[in-house]
């Protein structure tokens, strides 16, 4: 049966049998003398179940700038003059009747005009909010999608859907799927890394580890959270008093004793553990260097607007580029401060300022280093915000919102899809979250219907039972 075959496959990967890594590879792990240097590194990384890819990939990696809390599309990428005219007037009931609604339950529903100006930017004349002065400079590189919709109106399930393709907990996140599907080019770092930052204006929703959890995939594919304070990776620092050399001695002794034990029991799992200890030790030395931005030029630091070490979104953007250079497959940056139930005019200006320069810098920096063509950059949150006022803010909204994409395989300088004149419903070229995932996988060379994992009797996939390519944004 299918499940058995796949189980064998999975076990092979986990190291229970030799067919996953190849017998030479295994032997080399047990006796490092057999393989050296580059050859040795080649056999240690997980190379993915989609190997070769289903079709020619356009990109090798994803950088997802995740604006947690639900950025208003009406103040960022979807200008609505009609809504401006209707400011303070009742929202037509034809839109809202029988629709899900969050904190405005039972409240009077009046329109709130867009709180910031929009400008036409770049050669293409993309309409972008004046909040994003720097992004305007790379307007021709991004494809704005104005017609997203999602199913969940509260943060927690909406995050779950945006990351896993469904609102039911326990499924793998997009990054875990991609790592499982394609493996990683990095020998010293995990294939899926999460960076987080928090804005200063206090509109911060919680986020949860389940957003980068591997769900029912093997735990190996769990996203690894890099922290800006304390140890960048939990437990990556050797104990006090234990120098790198002493730690190496300890690891060497563990490895040697494990090899001795293996002579007796012949358990291929031991080879896996030996390789994981090697990887752990390499992380201990490579991660601090990675997080240290002092080797970056002043010009680069200025471009992003960071000095590093402050846990800011800007520092994380620069780290994202460094991770991309090191072959990390999936990099997700959360920035929390977008939940503008009140005070949207001022607060969205603050949070936009926190992300604008750095995200534009990231695109420029990737481009000049020749990395943008092989990277997909995604910007957006878990949902948008209502055209209706909630005091001087906006409530959660799921029927229409905006995101943008940039990088390899993406048609820059276009705006795709549209909401109605109030910015309530996505009405033209409507895009569901599952479609976004399908398109992301497509760009990575994966047919989203064929990246599956058997669980509870079904071949599950990131796109659940839906997902179609957003052809209009593909170059």
């Amino acid at each position, binding site marked *: *049966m*299918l*499940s058995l075959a796949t*189980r064998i496959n999975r076990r092979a990967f*986990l190291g*229970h*049998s030799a067919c996953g890594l190849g017998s030479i590879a295994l032997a080399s792990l047990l006796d490092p003398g057999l393989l050296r240097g580059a050859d040795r590194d080649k056999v240690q990384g997980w190379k993915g179940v989609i190997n070769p890819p289903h079709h020619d990939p356009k990109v090798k990696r994803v950088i997802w700038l995740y604006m947690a809390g639900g950025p208003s599309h009406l103040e960022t990428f979807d200008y609505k003059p009609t809504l401006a005219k209707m400011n303070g007037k009742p929202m037509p009931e034809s839109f809202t009747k029988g629709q*899900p*609604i*969050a904190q405005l339950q039972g409240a009077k529903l009046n329109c709130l005009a867009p709180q910031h100006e929009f400008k036409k930017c770049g050669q293409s004349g993309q309409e972008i909010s004046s909040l994003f002065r720097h992004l305007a400079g790379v307007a021709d590189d991004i494809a704005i999608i104005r017609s997203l919709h999602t199913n969940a*109106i*509260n*943060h*927690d399930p909406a995050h779950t859907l945006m990351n896993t393709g469904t609102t*039911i*907990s*326990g499924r793998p996140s997009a990054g875990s799927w991609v790592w499982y599907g394609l493996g990683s080019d990095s020998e010293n770092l995990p294939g899926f890394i999460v960076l987080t930052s928090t804005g200063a204006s206090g509109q*911060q*929703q*919680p986020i949860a*580890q*389940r957003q980068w*959890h591997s769900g029912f995939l093997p*735990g*190996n594919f769990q996203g690894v959270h890099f*922290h800006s*304070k304390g140890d960048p990776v*939990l*437990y990556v*620092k*050797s*104990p006090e*008093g*234990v*120098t790198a050399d*002493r*730690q190496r001695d*300890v*690891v060497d002794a*563990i490895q*040697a*004793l*494990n090899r*001795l*034990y293996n002579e007796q*029991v*012949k358990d291929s*799992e031991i080879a896996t*553990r030996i390789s*994981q*200890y090697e*990887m*752990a030790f390499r*992380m201990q030395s490579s991660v601090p260097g990675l997080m240290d931005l002092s080797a970056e030029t002043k010009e680069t630091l200025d471009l992003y607007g960071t000095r590093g070490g402050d846990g800011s979104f800007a520092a994380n953007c620069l780290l994202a580029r460094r991770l991309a250079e090191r072959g990390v497959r999936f990099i997700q940056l959360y920035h*929390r401060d977008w939940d503008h139930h009140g005070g949207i005019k001022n607060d969205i200006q603050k949070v936009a300022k926190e992300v604008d320069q750095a995200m534009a810098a990231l695109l420029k920096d990737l481009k000049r280093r020749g990395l943008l063509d092989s990277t997909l950059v995604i910007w957006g949150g878990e949902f948008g915000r209502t055209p209706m006022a909630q005091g001087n803010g906006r*409530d*959660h909204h799921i029927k229409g919102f905006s995101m943008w994409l940039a990088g390899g395989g993406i048609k820059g300088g276009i705006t795709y899809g549209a909401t109605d004149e109030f910015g309530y419903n996505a009405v033209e070229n409507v895009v569901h979250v599952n479609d976004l995932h399908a398109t992301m996988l497509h760009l990575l060379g994966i047919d989203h219907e064929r990246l599956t994992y058997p669980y*509870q*009797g*079904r071949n599950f996939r990131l796109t659940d039972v839906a997902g179609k390519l957003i052809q209009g944004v593909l170059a």
Partner: protein
Amino acid sequence: MRKKAFVAVVVLAAASRLSAADATPKIIDYSREVQPILSAHCYACHGPDDGKRKAKLRLDRRDAAIKKAIKPGDAAHSSLISRVSSDDDDEVMPPANKKDRLTPAQIDVLRRWIDEGAKFDIHWSYVKPVRPALPAVKNKSWAHNAVDTFIAASQEAHGLAPAPETDRITLIRRLSFDLTGLPPAPEEVDGFVNDTSPEAYEKLVNRLLASKHYGERMAMYWLDAVRYADTAGYHSDNHRDVWLFRNYVIDAFNANKRFDQFTIEQLAGDLLPNPTNEQRIASGYNRLLQTTEEGGAQPKEYTAKYAADRVRNASSVWLASTMGCCECHNHKFDPFTTRDFYSFGAFFADIQEKAVGRQDQTPILPPEDAARVKLFDEQLALLRSTLDRPSIELDALQAVWEKSVRAEGVKGLPKPVADALAIDPAKRTPQQKQAITKHYRSIAPELEAIRKATADVQAKRDPLLKNAPTTLVTTAIPPRVVRVLPRGNWLDDSGEVVQPTVPVFLASLDTKGKRATRLDLAKWIVAPENPLTARVFVNRLWKICFGQGIVKSLDDFGIQGSLPSHPQLLDWLAVEFVEKGWDIKYLLKLMTMSNTYRQSSVASQVVREKDPTNIWLARQGRFRLEAEMVRDNCLAVSGLLSSKIGGPSVKPYQPAGYWSFLNFPKREWQADKGESVYRRGLYTYWCRTFLHPSLLAFDAPTREECTVDRTRSSTPLQALVLLNDPIYVEAARSLAARIMKEGGPDMETRLNWTYRRALSRGVKSEEVKLLTELYQKHLTEFQKDMPGAQKAVTVGQLSAPKNMDTAELAAWTSVARVILNLHETVTRN
């Protein structure tokens, strides 16, 4: 010639899945060979889901299938065969764009099956198990009990012989981990190794089953299934008290509570006559799900989510069925319908809870305290009625008081009273009059004695409730209306209203016209007629003893699930389990007493190649310890482990800032002090959105959904935890101090002492050599780097023992860290 080759292919294909030895072509087995093909490739459009059915063809039922696509006995004229083997893109099935063409071997299975008459069977797990006869085996001397007999028969059928019995050290280690989750102490190992009596092993099994740590080990497993956690799960993920439920589970396993009773108490303990505290706590099962407090969450939506969650969980835990699929559509593979899903959910419609908001905790008082509170409440009622009683005398006194107050001013009186007094007595409303009277009676000197008595009673009553531990229990209220939600859409009220019923294809409940309750559901789940429950549970016990189930898909006994590797053994065990009174310890004893269990886990090259995934159990399993056990083992070896059982969750060390992404409110993890830091892993505070990173690294689930088959990964993060997490460093230091104190005079004796603690065995000369080298090198280094040595021995809350050479202790800490990190240390074999 060609045909022969074809048969060979088929046999090979079947052999690779089922059997390596048996080469004679057999009658095609519908359940094992045909249904998996139809289910995987055809049911999505031609299965039980009538919503998505194409061409009105269904292939999951014989009566329907033989009307259209199948001509029994005549594959050549069955359109099923012509369609699946067609070269025409417009004809071929599955459709060309599905890219999942059947292989020639699969088509041949279908062809032969139709030629043989196209016999359909009911899926194995939906037929009540009957006790099969024991098979005849050659290796009679090995077949110690029924388990062995079935295992020997399958080994023999596949040309395998059992592995030799493992050595006693491995055996006691294996058994201790499996039954208590803890390593054996060196004295226990010696006792067993030196016990020459024929009952030595049985005594050991009995002792471990009687250990109070047995309940903890079994609870680890059960808490995953029922998704026990200390936080609510969604969004702000706030705290809730449910540790009494964990106590209940530990106690139930330790007391060997019958599994049927255990089931009934959790699903419906509150509905039992005069439920005990224990039964009410058990009913907290229904409250363990994720709940939300998020502002703007719509109660109706979350009520629907909770119903669905409960259906998914109960059907996974007891029936290994994936009923969750039916929230939006009829099941694609199994005979569950959407109506079944919502009717199952209706059983839980009587549970009192807040759809959105903090759940109310229920104090649990010991019976004697509860009786006292009842008595106090009666006294209080009496006293209050005395205070409120109409009285001409008091009314007269009140009038005098009113007069004086009006004269002196109302300053200091509560505003409503003052306001009422300002009004002409004749014009006062009844409320105003009452406000004045009530106030007067609260100050009247004549009533002082009664007021004092009231206060005294109150002072005795309140602490009883305040100091009582609280938990979430189930309280039944008039049931909510439950409708079928079209496509799972909670906004759509057009669906039919449903009553509680069990899945229609499995059974119907006779409740004499009354609405069926959770108690009815629970009783049906554990009725001997239920084909699933006993099989599902014995399969999970099997996993505990052998590392994988007889049915590998522990959570799916449906058509897409794995088939049992030993169907007769599974049925035999299920029947035995029920007939012996759902006796869990009895069943574990049966399994662990078997020779199958006692085999070595080391396999020859031949066996490894013949049976790489150990389906036929010609050896025992070897696998990494579970997350909590990795921790427990290390603490036990180092001597730090607390042996306290039960109680509230504890907070061991956790990296600072790990909780910084929680909000509403913002929280800091405050690590406990003292013994709490060294409790077993199952007591670690289980925060769903940010589970303790050391547990998470070793595949502990976040318990949002039912988990019955944890993944077992091997990752660099695990290495970082064992190398650098302060608890592991502190444990290594504690172990080092003990080595120096108790380990003996010289290097080899000391290492031997340590190996016996950590690995239950003596140390080998090569190991001595390696570790001595490390020790000497680090000793020399630390002697030159005393500040470093000092730091290395002060990780954790305990201060380093005095009167010990710091450099020596630091060097031994290095050695202890190595030993605690060994593959062998974290492996059950």
